[in-house]
């Protein structure tokens, strides 16, 4: 793996801090938001949308774009923050339209209201099959784009994931990249206590995937190195699909949320908002 461009890393780290703050404010404004899993995948999402993903802000259906399927649809709010920051809509719009009749911003994303989402998701364990379908489409089109699927770890309990994992490997869909946000927590507690996933990387490998392990998926440098190490896009040549296991901390960046299963979803009061914003700032990495 090549050493990361540290200027890029620092820029993305700053962006991640900004997005975490926006997410806290959103949660304070709108009610219940899935905070834990949004905060854990923040570095990966920021690295993708501010560096690695190919897309056109003005044309969400640009044919040459990379496709990203958010299997963990409950963390759509994190992407709302990113898209607002990118200028697709205003933050105020998201507050007003969040989980309201006639609003565009569901607790789980709907692609009809927000075409930037490739698929309407929410029911867990669906994303990998959808992404596999898109990867087949990319192959038929000999397309110069990749398909990413961000999935939670808990949702890997769902059997249909393993149908998709088996299928993508059988057809050697090298244009498919699964990213597992391995934050170790279900809604109610540790995955390893209630339904263990380990040895997770071995399982993917045994099914025929290449695995890239990010030891700390909340360390932007490691995330950047992993994403930069992806082979060039090639939809046609049969190659193993790639799984990136991003080991993260649920609630990362907001001290009182970290590793607290109860913060899977919740509301941030005015008081907790200030504490959270201070916490995010204190957790900012200072690079020299």
């Amino acid at each position: 793996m090549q050493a990361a461009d540290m200027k890029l890393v620092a820029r993305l780290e700053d962006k991640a801090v900004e997005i975490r703050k926006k997410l806290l404010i959103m949660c304070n404004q709108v009610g219940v938001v899935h905070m834990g899993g949004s905060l854990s995948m923040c570095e990966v999402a920021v690295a993708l949308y501010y560096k690695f993903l190919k897309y056109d802000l003005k044309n969400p259906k640009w044919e040459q774009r990379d496709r990203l399927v958010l299997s963990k649809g409950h963390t759509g709010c994190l992407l709302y923050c990113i898209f607002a920051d990118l200028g697709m809509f205003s933050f105020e719009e998201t507050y007003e339209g969040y989980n309201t009749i006639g609003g565009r911003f569901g607790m789980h994303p709907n692609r009809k209201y927000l075409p930037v989402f490739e698929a309407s998701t929410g029911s867990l364990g669906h994303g990998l099959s959808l992404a596999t379908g898109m990867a087949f489409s990319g192959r038929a089109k000999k397309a110069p784009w990749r398909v990413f699927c961000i999935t939670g770890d808990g949702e890997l309990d769902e059997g249909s994931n393993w149908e998709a994992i088996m299928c993508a490997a059988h057809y050697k869909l090298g244009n498919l990249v699964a990213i597992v946000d391995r934050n170790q927590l279900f809604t109610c507690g540790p995955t390893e206590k209630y339904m263990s996933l380990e040895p997770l990387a071995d399982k993917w490998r045994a099914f025929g995937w290449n695995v890239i392990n990010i030891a700390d998926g909340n360390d932007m440098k490691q995330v950047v190195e992993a994403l930069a190490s992806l082979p060039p896009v090639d939809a046609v040549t049969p190659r193993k699909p790639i799984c990136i296991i991003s080991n993260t901390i649920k609630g990362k960046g907001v001290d009182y949320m970290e590793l607290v299963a109860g913060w899977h979803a919740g509301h941030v009061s005015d008081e907790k908002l200030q504490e959270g914003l201070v916490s995010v700032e204190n957790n900012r990495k200072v690079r020299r």
Partner: protein
Amino acid sequence: MPGITYNFFDLVDLANTRELWVKKLIELAAVHKNIFLLASDAQVPGNTICEFRDLYPNRFVDVGIAEPNLVGIAAGLALDGNITYAQAFGPFLSTRATDQIHTDVAYNDIPVRLIGTHGGLTSGGGPTHNAILDFAIIRGIPNMTMVAPSDTNQCLRLIEASVTYPGPIYIRIPRGAEPLVYANQDYDFTIGKAVLAKEGSDATIIGTGSAVFNSLKAAQELETEGIKVRVLDMHTIKPLDNEAVLKASRETGIVVTVEDHNILGGLGSAVADTVLEAGVQCKFKRLGVPDVFAAFGEAKELYAYYGYDSNGIKKQIKSML
């Protein structure tokens, strides 16, 4: 509209919808380059699925025995601008992959065409292999269209129409060779519009899918006894042709529905909803699987056993006149 159907006192031609619909798709795929065929453990050497695969290898996927993944992949393809035809054993497609049909296909509202084979009791494989609740499940999902063609040629017309039809469709077909219902194709086929397969004023039989054959046979036999029974081929369960249902119920006063499906939640329930909400007074009976896991046996024997073969339908009509 006499003369469009066969006279069932004669020997009737059989045709295998499962083989022939793929043949039709092969034709369409030559023109429409975004048509994909997805199958699940269905490549029998020499069958039409293999023919499609060999002609369009990049537009064919066999997922093995994995219905949820089949539907998810079909949706992923359709989300990227393709028209996906995904075939699986009906008994497992509608039930095992319900969540994928609900969320990936219907909620996303995309052109996926799910083809559930072995409809009703036609598999002959017993209750695990009977598809007796696909109408009920699919009817309950917003955005879905549910169609059960009554014979092979009608299915081919449906497949043709499906290329440009907006939104997802579930198509139910039987296991193997079944009698042709229509002697010619000189009738209007539109998704959501019933076919008036036989005129009549004394009673109405509303059939769907493979039950249309027995409905017509019963009506033709009753005709020889002077009883004039109307037959509606209700190939589309959803959206239901309410107009045809209400017209028939008002004009004939007797409505019997016949479906190779549980009598709960399917065609009969849909017709009842329409008739009751419109305040139409009529005699009404649902025929089909009487909310049981069916006995073992071949479909023909079971239709007779549960009273929805042509004799059972005739008996039912006579008891209501």
